[in-house]
């Protein structure tokens, strides 16, 4: 076989994708002969199902057409309930970024302090252990009640779900900086501030970045659910809205794009992480 392993794996991926689409296509082919359809069900699903010959699930071609329609004009705004998928996506990304950056702003300095002080570590540990496993959506009613603003509440939920991995990883990374390196700084009479940014920060950076990468993944998972709850704008709201319109091809399109954006976010952070890793 010719070609590098990379090329071969790419070819295999393409073949798998084609196979998947083919199976999908075959599974959603119009059924031969008309089937009896439960009238209740037909009423529920509307015209498409009422025809009977056609599967309720969209075919790849239908999804492709809808995908193309969405992507050819992603950034229009025609009203509160009619915005391009790109606009919705940008709303979601904006929320994730604000909540995530706020969380980083709190988690990294706090994690630094916790990592440097065993006393603080032990004192805060019970709080962190209790707060960490709470589903971020459980905070939603409380946030809506106290903040009284759905957009800010969504950002708060992102904040609260992305803070823990960053906090714990920063604290762990800082606490496990090699004693030797700190001793080098001490024998050179390096002040605490310079030690923090010239020794501890670069030493702990790979661990901190791992936490940041886990956080962005969780934040992106949570935003869709949060926007389904608070409504208004965002890709989560889009999915919910299209479900109400029973536009399954649009939902499939959104699912696909959510996956792609999530991957892009992860890749961006992986790129950043690569900049700060060091070989020992």
């Amino acid at each position, binding site marked *: 076989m010719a070609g590098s392993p990379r090329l071969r794996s790419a070819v295999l991926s393409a073949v798998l994708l084609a196979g998947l689409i083919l199976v999908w296509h075959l599974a959603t082919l119009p059924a031969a002969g008309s089937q009896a359809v439960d009238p209740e069900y037909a009423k529920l699903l509307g015209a498409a199902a009422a025809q009977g010959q056609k599967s309720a699930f969209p075919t790849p071609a239908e999804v492709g057409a809808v995908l193309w329609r969405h992507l050819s004009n992603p950034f229009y705004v025609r009203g509160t309930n009619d915005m391009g998928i790109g606009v919705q996506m940008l709303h979601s990304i904006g929320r994730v970024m604000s909540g995530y950056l706020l969380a980083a702003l709190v988690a990294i300095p706090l994690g630094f302090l916790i990592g440097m002080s065993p006393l603080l570590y032990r004192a805060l540990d019970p709080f962190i252990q209790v707060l960490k496993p709470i589903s971020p959506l459980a905070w939603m009613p409380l946030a809506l009640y106290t903040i009284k603003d759905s957009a800010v509440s969504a950002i708060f939920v992102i904040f609260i779900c992305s803070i823990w991995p960053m906090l714990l990883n920063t604290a762990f990374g800082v606490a496990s900086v090699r004693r030797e390196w700190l001793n080098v700084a001490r024998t050179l009479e390096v002040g605490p501030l310079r030690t923090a940014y010239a020794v501890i920060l*670069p030493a702990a950076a790979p661990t901190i970045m791992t936490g940041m990468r886990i956080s962005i993944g969780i934040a992106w998972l949570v935003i869709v659910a949060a926007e389904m709850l608070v409504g208004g704008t965002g890709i989560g709201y889009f999915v919910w809205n299209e479900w109400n319109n029973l536009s399954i091809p649009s939902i499939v399109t959104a699912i696909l794009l959510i996956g792609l954006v999530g991957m892009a976010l992860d890749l961006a952070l992986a790129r950043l992480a690569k900049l700060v890793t*060091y070989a020992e």
Partner: protein
Amino acid sequence: MIDRPLISVEGLAKRYPAPGGKPGTTVFENLWFTVHPGEFVCLIGHSGCGKTTILNVMAGLEQASAGTVIADGREVSGPSLDRAMIFQGHALMPWMTVLGNVAFAVRSRQPKWPKARVLEHARRYVELVGLAGAEAKHPAQLSGGMKQRVGIARALAIQPRMLLMDEPFSALDALTRGMLQDEVLRLCRETHQTTFMITHDIDEAILLADRIVLMTNGPGARIAEIVVNTLPRDRTRHEMHRHPHYYRIRNHLLDFLVDRARDFAREAEAGGWDARNPPEVRPGEAEPSLAVRNAAPSMARPTPHTDVA
């Protein structure tokens, strides 16, 4: 040596409490010795007797349980740029380049220097240890010997009054170790660098040290005696074994490490040994049979103790 010692270790002890508040282990106690300006002193002892601990206390990185270290007339209470350390592991920062590691130290010593001057100074020391051309490499790309050279450059670049080394060559192969020993010898002689080094390699001690401090086994380790190296100062690794003193000194050290380090407590009880003034011996000048059999007759006059505290 009538001048004031640069470092004076006085009554040093280290104890670790046992879990549960019971009286714990005493790693070493009541250690007394000095290092004079321009002198190269080696400390030899078995693994675990507390050598690294002593060095850390001298560097100000660790606290002793009792006793003090006087450096330059003042009690050591913390680390200082006057005392540079070469660590048992090389302790280079892996995210910095070779030049970056040395420059980090230079910038600490000379915070007011402009960047170009810091780099220029650092580059000079990288060249001094024979690493010209490797400035931009990261420690992970270097061999063990090269890493240790960077550690040496980093320590020398701050031009310390006192160089403290913790078995700097123990992790290296024999060939590299020999080369680095020669280099350290040259650098220290050229600059009259006061150096205190820990080792458990007898030949290394004989090559480098003016005086060799012998430490007994722990727990409760002591300074048994101090061996004066009577080989000529311009000795080299290749030539020194031809000198008649060499084997006498070597046998004396070997004899100590093999037998006496373990049973020294009994020897001390027999009398004549004073912890405050450990005897200075010159086995190189002694009759060979005496030097190997028994150290007592070869004891020289103890150095006058200069009490600074």
